[in-house]
């Protein structure tokens, strides 16, 4: 069939200007649709995460996958600077290991970790954990909030012997350890936080002194003596107001997963 070339060219020119805006419109519409869909799905995921029972998120594989994916990114951006990218903390700086089974506060449940993420430890947030602080017994004022006695260097040595002997360290003077125990249970006041049995108190974050795990240092005479003398002043910031609530929950789930609990809490 003969083709009118002139007409053909003319037709193509007249059609192209119409197709281009239509194509642009369709692409924009598609982008808008995808964006809206992503927002709707994102909101749905967020709502699902927040409305779920925090302590059972890790039991739901679909929800756990979303929480861990998001939580890992939040952890790297906000927590890794102190706790390390692998969450193992550092005994050099007294930053807790988040991968072990030694819990300073609570039992490692997602809801408990979420509270710490949101309100912190000694962060100044009224809803945070602000009760306990290891006093500096080698200072003239060991504890700002409460009147506590300073200890003499000999008393600090005796307490060190007591703590080390509880953890099976060899070479400690038994007499010094007994004197240290008397101090621990007596005017040293250590029992008030760490408990009469020295197993700590998770309600105030006082560490177990008998389990051979050390928040700072390696349990050497030098390290324990220094902690008693200079105290500990670690802080976990409150991320309320800085993190979206869904991100706070996601990172709490992620941290809980790092602990690899032997049994479900």
């Amino acid at each position, binding site marked *: 069939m003969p083709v009118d070339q002139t007409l053909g060219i003319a037709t193509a020119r007249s059609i192209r200007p119409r197709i281009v805006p239509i194509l642009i419109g369709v692409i924009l519409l598609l982008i808008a649709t995808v964006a809206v869909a992503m927002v709707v799905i994102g909101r749905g995921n*967020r*709502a699902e995460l*927040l*409305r779920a*029972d*925090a*302590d*059972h998120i890790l039991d739901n594989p679909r929800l756990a996958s979303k929480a861990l994916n998001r939580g890992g990114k939040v952890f790297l951006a906000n927590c890794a*600077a*102190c706790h390390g990218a692998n969450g193992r903390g550092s005994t*050099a*700086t*007294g930053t807790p290991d988040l991968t072990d089974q030694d819990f300073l506060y609570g039992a490692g449940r997602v*809801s408990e970790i*979420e*509270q710490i993420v*949101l309100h*912190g430890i*000694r*962060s*100044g*947030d*009224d*809803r945070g954990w602000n009760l306990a602080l290891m006093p500096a017994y*080698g*200072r*003239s004022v060991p504890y700002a909030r409460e009147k506590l006695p*300073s200890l*003499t*260097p*000999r008393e600090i040595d005796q307490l060190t012997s007591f703590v080390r002997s509880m953890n099976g360290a060899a070479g400690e003077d038994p007499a010094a350890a007994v004197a240290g125990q008397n101090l621990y249970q007596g005017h040293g006041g250590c029992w008030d936080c760490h408990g009469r049995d020295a197993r700590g108190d998770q309600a105030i974050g006082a560490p177990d002194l008998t389990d051979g795990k050390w928040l*700072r240092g390696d349990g050497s005479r030098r390290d324990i003596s*220094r902690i008693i*003398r*200079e105290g*500990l*002043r*670690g*802080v976990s*910031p*409150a*991320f*309320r*107001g*800085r993190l979206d*609530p*869904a991100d*706070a929950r996601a990172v709490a789930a992620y941290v809980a997963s790092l602990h690899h609990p032997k049994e479900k809490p």
Partner: protein
Amino acid sequence: MNVPAGETKAGLRTWWRPDVHNERRSLTLCAVAAVLGLAIAGGALFNARGTRIAGVPPEDAAVVNQSPILLSDYVAQLKALYNVDPSQATPAQKRAALNGMIREELYVQRGIELGLQNDFIEVRNSLVTAVESQQEVEANATLPTEQELRAFYQDHLQNYQPEGLMTLTDYLAPDLASAQRAVIAVRSGKDLATAMSGAGLRSSGATDDGDEFYFAAEAHIGSRLFSIAKGLHDGQVSDPVADGGRVHVLAMHSNRQPVAEDYGQARDRVLADYRADKIARMRAGTDHFLRERADVQIAKDFR
């Protein structure tokens, strides 16, 4: 103005005809709308319930007059009241916890409406503490760089010295001459105990517990004697010192001057001090800002 009867009838006839202009209808509708608007405004004024938002956000358990009751607070409240998680709580426990929180929120809002911060010292104190705590939270959430921390450590090196330690004996002499004799004997190489007892000096007992931190030694022997003791080396005795009507001779057995811990050892305290310093600066800044923008007028006789 008198309206002719014919016009009135025509106006009534065209009342329901929207295609015909009717001034009476326009005015009447305007008046009705105005009255209706005023009635709604008046009703809302006396029965105000606040603006409702569309649904409760997923991070909240409830919203009371647009103030959220956070889900995390609700969970904490359930634990505080009944020691249970939401999954274990009974419907009655959940209701009671939430109702309690809603009541608290309503009372807080009512308290603000009534301006109770002007009347109750506890409320005022709590508000001041809350504002200060907010600054603390913000400061604690900042993570300075290692470079900033090291610079802070260098600038405040004296804060990272543990207390010095000394073991000394504070001898009391019967008189200045005996003290001089004892000091000369020790400095010429005689045994300390023999020299002191030979000249009639005896320990005051103030520092006989062995090693002491500097602050403890100062508390035991006083600032004047402590400042002398601090400068003594191991095995050295001081010149006789008259203090408080008595003559003292200080014998230093061991004096360990404070040495600053290295940065790695002190890092946690450096970070805590850095943040404390930041809080202090933020508070000073806030004080200045609030003062500057406030209109504070002080009576003449109180200036």
